[in-house]
């Protein structure tokens, strides 16, 4: 597989959310506004890339039966780095993302990539894989957040769109998240079945 393919597969053909169906919790919970989504993407991609690097570096030293705890420890380390950095330099974002920052640890995408890709490949492809998967995750998250922020709070990037209009609050709540993602997945399925024909 060429380096380009390793990178690009995460964005479309193996998109972690739309195709593989993993990492749903942060996707649905933090996509209430575009800025939250972008910060979450940044945080998760950072952890993904660095955990991939370290996992691919130590893969030959680690006995296979304790690899999962070690991967989790590596991931958790980078999550805490993100947590502390955001808390110090972007306290508002840290507050807005809330517990979903520590919960990056249990994001199935990160452990999944460590187990499935980084523990079998060298450093460079692992970095590209992490970057691609992070972008795929972020792209879905941002599109979702774009619609939810416009419909649910009548805002975009925190600025009011139509003054005086009452927004459909349900879009920022859990049902809106489920429905928006359902429509995105539906569209994805429709595209795939058209291609097959």
């Amino acid at each position: 597989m060429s380096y380009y393919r390793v990178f690009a597969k995460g964005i479309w053909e193996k998109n972690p959310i739309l195709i593989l169906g993993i990492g749903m919790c942060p996707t649905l919970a933090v996509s209430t506004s575009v800025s939250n989504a972008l910060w979450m993407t940044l945080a998760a991609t950072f952890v993904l890339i660095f955990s991939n690097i370290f996992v691919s570096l130590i893969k030959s030293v680690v006995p296979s039966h304790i690899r999962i705890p070690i991967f989790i420890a590596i991931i958790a380390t980078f999550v805490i780095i993100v947590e502390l950095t955001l808390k110090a330099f972007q306290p508002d974002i840290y507050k807005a993302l809330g517990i979903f920052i520590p919960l990056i640890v249990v994001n199935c995408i990160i452990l999944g990539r460590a187990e499935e890709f980084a523990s079998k490949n060298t450093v460079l492809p692992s970095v590209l894989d992490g970057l691609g998967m992070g972008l795929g995750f972020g792209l879905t998250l941002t599109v979702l957040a774009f619609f939810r922020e416009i419909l649910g709070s009548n805002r975009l990037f925190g600025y009011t769109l139509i003054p005086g209009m009452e927004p459909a609050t349900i879009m920022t709540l859990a049902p809106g998240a489920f429905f928006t993602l359902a429509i995105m997945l539906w569209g994805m399925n429709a595209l795939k079945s058209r291609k097959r024909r």
Partner: protein
Amino acid sequence: MNASILRSTLILGLTSFIATFALSHIKAITYPVIQKQERQKQENALALVLPGYTIGEERTAAVGRANFTYWTGQKAGGNTTAKAYAFIAEKPGYSGAIRTMVGVDEKGTVLGISIIRQSETPGLGARVLEAASRNTFFQVVTGRAHETGEEPSPWFQEQFRGVNAAAKIAIFKKGDWNETMRDELLLKNGVSAITGATITTKAVKDSIEVGMATLRIALEEHAKAQEAAGK
């Protein structure tokens, strides 16, 4: 078997050691910044709830089970100095405690409140912090945005200004508050609840009432202690 257990333990321990070692350094870098942020936040909140006052010492009093933190403030005006107090009030809302800093004058009239911590549902209870932005997205994109010197204060906090905390505060369901409602609501010593989040509103209101009562007790005890020390 034993050798493999030993090796696994060693590797796991080593990983944890390196991880913790690295993290302690990151913490050393970020800790002063976080501390500074938190101090800054507290100063901002104090300036918001006691506008124009010089903030005095911070006191803690053990009232009931929990510690009660309050500040004194002074403002020289004419030939008298006005005294005011700020305290931290806390009550559980829907998810977790809502912590509010409240500023009151000697009579118990609220000078301002600032919600410093909440984790309510976004779109409902979390609207306690929602401020009506002065600019719309199109104005920003087309470059016709107003120069906003400072962010407007959230309406939910704004409406408490002038309410008497020493008496019962009433809650009305009038939808989003605006400046025109102030006189009508103040007459009844009331505030308007956030639509769909009456519980959140009630938690803030209750915490202010309880906090005011606690402040009274704390002040009396402090005066007594001062007197005893004076003798």
